């Protein structure tokens, strides 16, 4: 009996989110349309509650539950808290957007919470099947979210694409996992690690599995050549869903990579390192070069995501503690930047108008100097201009790669970052030096303006004082990966 309680206590945040998601779904049936805001409040309460549970049950030790299928360690806690925070922010940004587009329904919130639940399981999974289950829960929720605006042909098209390709990627992932099972006789990550430490029985089969697993992971992250879905899905989805896919799910995908590759398959580092290098190099190039040609800001940010993933891989491919720490820092920074970037796009959209072309940003400074300034910080940060957060994130990742001896790859990355700076700075140019075309006033609820301002200013403040965040990342990684 005690073991059950212990297991349940370890997974308490997940259980809480699950209950609340189902409650919201039920409650929505009985609510009058006027009282819909309750759903929003409840969803936000869920996130705060989950954060409270995660933080209050925090221990610096690593605890396993459900027969070692589930783990609660500092790394999972840090990533989960970041997820709650990002989801919270994203819900604040999207409220008026979905209201104006008839998506302000219980489904949206329930699906977001289910997706979050899936991600939490991905972060805490210690067993191939647990991890896979979390991934599928996330994916299915996302497919539905993308298609939520079902009368919009573009959204349905994006959903179908996402679904088919996602299914293919899942298949690859499962196939790769089955190879590991065949070789090691276990699906549990710690058992697999142990078995590999004793000796790799069949290297060829392991590499076969590894290629498929890496392909599946790369699909989730959006690394080249598995990035094809990203621009179409970013573009086709309602912006409220794009922001979710672009930020929170990347945190989960990163945690997923840490669990599988670094915790589970570290022994094969010599093999996956090379794969990550190829993907990193290609991602940075394709992301940055193609972004230049884009006129749609959502597509531009999609390619920017691809290039950021390339930088993220630079940290991971170093296969060193330092590299993982800097990658964790990078993904957290990336999430903050992207949230704020999409926040500004959501801010500019209004009833019957989607701000999605670069030209919609023209002369933003004349319409609202403050938001133009916030966007300026975001763009500088994405481009990696000091002293913003993005600079420090790129700096640490490249430093880790340097320490691992990849001098030329680092030079290459810096050159590519310079190319990338072009399209970020073009946004700044449009905002400050072009004449305004669209003079309509910017209206947004107070909560959104407040959170957006904090979000963007945080990029500057944390960029100036990166050490505390760095310490948290270092702590989480060094405590959890031993």
């Amino acid at each position, binding site marked *: 009996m005690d073991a059950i309680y212990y297991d349940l206590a370890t997974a308490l945040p997940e259980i809480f989110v699950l209950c609340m998601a189902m409650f919201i779904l039920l409650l929505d049936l009985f609510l009058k349309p006027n009282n819909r805001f309750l759903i929003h409040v409840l969803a936000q309460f869920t996130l705060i509650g989950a954060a409270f549970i995660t933080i209050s049950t925090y221990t610096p030790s690593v605890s396993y539950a459900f027969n070692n299928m589930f783990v609660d360690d500092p790394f999972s806690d840090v990533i989960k808290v970041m997820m709650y925070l990002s989801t919270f922010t994203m819900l604040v940004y999207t409220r008026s957007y979905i209201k104006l587009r008839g998506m302000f329904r219980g489904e949206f919130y329930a699906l977001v919470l289910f997706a979050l639940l899936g991600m939490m399981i991905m972060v805490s999974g210690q067993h191939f099947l647990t991890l896979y289950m979390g991934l599928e829960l996330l994916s299915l929720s996302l497919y539905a979210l993308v298609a939520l605006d079902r009368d919009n042909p573009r959204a349905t098209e994006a959903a*179908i*694409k996402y679904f*088919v*390709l996602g299914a*293919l*990627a899942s298949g*690859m992932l499962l196939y790769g996992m089955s190879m590991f099972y065949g070789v090691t006789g276990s699906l549990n990550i710690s058992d697999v690690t142990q078995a590999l430490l004793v000796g790799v029985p069949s*290297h*060829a089969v392991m*590499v*076969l599995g*590894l*290629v*498929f697993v*890496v*392909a599946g992971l790369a*699909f989730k992250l959006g690394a080249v*050549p*598995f990035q*094809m*879905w990203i*621009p*179409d899905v970013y573009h086709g989805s309602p912006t409220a869903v794009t922001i979710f896919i672009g930020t929170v799910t990347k945190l989960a995908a990163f945690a997923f990579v840490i669990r599988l590759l670094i915790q589970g398959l570290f022994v094969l580092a010599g*093999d996956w390192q*090379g*794969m990550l290098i*190829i993907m990193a190099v290609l991602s940075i190039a*394709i992301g940055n*070069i*193609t972004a*230049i*040609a884009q006129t749609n800001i959502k597509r531009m940010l999609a390619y920017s995501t691809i290039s950021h993933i390339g930088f993220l891989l630079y940290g991971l491919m170093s296969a060193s503690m330092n590299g993982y720490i800097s990658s964790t820092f990078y993904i957290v920074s990336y999430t903050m930047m992207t949230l704020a970037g999409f926040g500004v796009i959501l801010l500019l959209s209004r009833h019957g108008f989607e701000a999605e072309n670069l030209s919609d940003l023209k002369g933003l400074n004349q319409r609202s100097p403050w938001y133009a300034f916030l966007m300026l910080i975001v763009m500088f940060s994405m481009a990696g201009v000091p*002293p913003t957060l993005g600079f*420090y994130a790129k*700096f640490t990742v490249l*430093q880790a790669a340097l320490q691992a001896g990849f001098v030329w790859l680092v030079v290459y990355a810096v050159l590519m970052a310079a190319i990338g700076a072009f399209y970020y700075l073009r946004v700044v140019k449009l905002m400050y030096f072009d004449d305004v075309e669209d003079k309509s006033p910017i209206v947004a609820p107070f909560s959104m303006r407040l959170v957006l301002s904090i979000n963007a200013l945080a990029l500057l403040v944390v960029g*100036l004082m*990166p*050490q505390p965040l760095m310490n948290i990342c270092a702590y989480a990684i060094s405590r959890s990966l031993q």
Partner: protein
Amino acid sequence: MTDMQSIYLLIPLLPLFAAVIVGLFGSQLPRSAAHVLTILGVGASFALSAYVFVDALQGNVYNGTVYTWLTSGDISFEVGFLVDRLTAMMMVVVTFVSLMVHIYTIGYMHEDPGYSRFFSYISLFTFSMLMLVMSNNFMQLFFGWEAVGLVSYLLIGFWYKRPTAIYANLKAFLVNRVGDFGFLLGIGMVLYFFGSLNYDAVFTIAPHLADATVSVIPNTEWSLMTMVCLLLFVGAMGKSAQVPLHVWLPDSMEGPTPISALIHAATMVTAGIFMVARMSPLFELSTTALSTVMVIGAITALFMGFLGIIQNDIKRVVAYSTLSQLGYMTVALGASAYSVAMFHLMTHAFFKALLFLAAGSVIMGMHHDQDIRNMGGLRKYMPITWITSLIGSLALIGTPLFSGFYSKDSIIEAVKLSHITGSSFAYFAVLAGVFVTAFYSFRLYFLVFHGKERWMEKPHEEHTPHTHEVAAHSDDEHHHVVHEEHHGLGPDDKPHESPWVVTFPLIALAIPSVIIGYVAIGPMLFGDFFNGVIFVDIHAHPVMHELAEDFHGAGAMAMHALTSAPFWLALSGVVLSWFFYMKRPDIPAAIKAHTVLINKILENKYGFDSFNEKVFAAGSRFIGNKLWQIGDVKLIDGLIVNGTARLIGRISGIIRQLQSGLIYHYAFAMIIGVFLMLTFWFAKI
């Protein structure tokens, strides 16, 4: 964080906060908020600096890091403070003069539409200057260095609608780039060879590298120390306007007068002097560098003084005198008399700020006419300005018992005792400089405050005041077109004394101009004030040691001076200027008519400007044009940029085809990816 640490932090941050608030919200706040906030900030900063000074007098030294920005390998970039007596003295001087200038500005700028912008800038300047002097590492020093430079450009170009102001600020910017380039190279060398940017660490290592050499050009060995010191000194030459990088300072007078006093006389331009004094442990290791410093200082001291004689713009006369006095300080540095240089820096800060502010007061009284030939007899109308100007001038020329006397005479004595290369020339230059200084200072004084009231005689069409100037300086006529909105004094107008916010700073600055030398010379030069702060190699450069043997108290020094050459030189300068400009105004005109060549040279300012204009500016434009036509248009634009653009266009064309929107293409790409990876890795096994 200890109490003292928070005080150190507050001192620069208070002016910064005031500057930011006033700068960002100045247009929304009432006009008075601009000066109330900034004066509160700077005032508090002054009070705290005074407290720190008293604390430092007790021998307390603070050296620590307050914030680490980032660490890269073994090098960390930090914000840190080194507060010893040298710093504390600078802090008090900077905040005091800044406070006076803040108060003065209320009166001087009160009609200006950029009122709050101006206050924001000068507060920002105070912050930057404090960061510069309080730094304990080269990185922050450079930050402060550039930050004061930035504010200086902003303020020179404060009246940004006047083409002359924009020209002057561009010139200051470009000339300072030259200096800063050297400075940056120097810092780079320090980092490379010493492995640290922290003063303490560098100074500890320095003696071990005294004999180190570097070969920049193969097969030549240059002393490392000499190179580092000379490069750092190039920075000081730019900032402290030493020949040949002095050309920006006279033009900087295009800025409003309060900043001429604060930035271009009392504080910023002395940053170079301060820096060299701070780096005394490095400079002491290279006599070659010291000689260079001394000769450059001597040239500046004498030849810039000559130029003061022929200027007719009241501010430019004072500006050339600043150049000359900076030369004096540099000479003292070259003679290893760092403490004397710092002493002169301090006294000069007071009396030169006073002279500038008094000049500003005169300009206000004359309704923004700056030509001294249109003035005269002002003492009746502006008594406070008159008396304080007289005090300032007496201090400047080195009248015994006045502050300038103690510092300047000590410099002359120190140079006399020095035996390094160039010291005999320097001695001649500083001695001759005394006469020149006295002559032009009192020429200005007599022409402005005594004699006939010439504004009444002025023909009516000359109301645009600078027609004379334009005629006299045909080569730079663009610099001298002054305020369209002010027409100077009409024949029926009377000059008037300025309001109390203007006269109060004059009085407050006049007091230290008189007494500070008498009070401070003992402890600062010959006591233990700078012990452990300024390092002098007694055996190689025994100047200060020998100077101390001759010193028997401030009073005795003043008595002794009555029988020494500088005093009589100064006196003769005063008498001669009185005779020329009060008694026989025809003589200067006659001399001018008979010495056309010399006059021409002086009016062209030795041709520095035209040389720069013709060689550097035209040369850069030529190279720039060529680079643009060949390098930029053909190579970069044609081949690289457009070539890349075409290439990228082609690439994106291909990628766009891949990104067809068709699912099976996407799936195919994924499968190809997996397939390639598999092949590759199986090939490896």
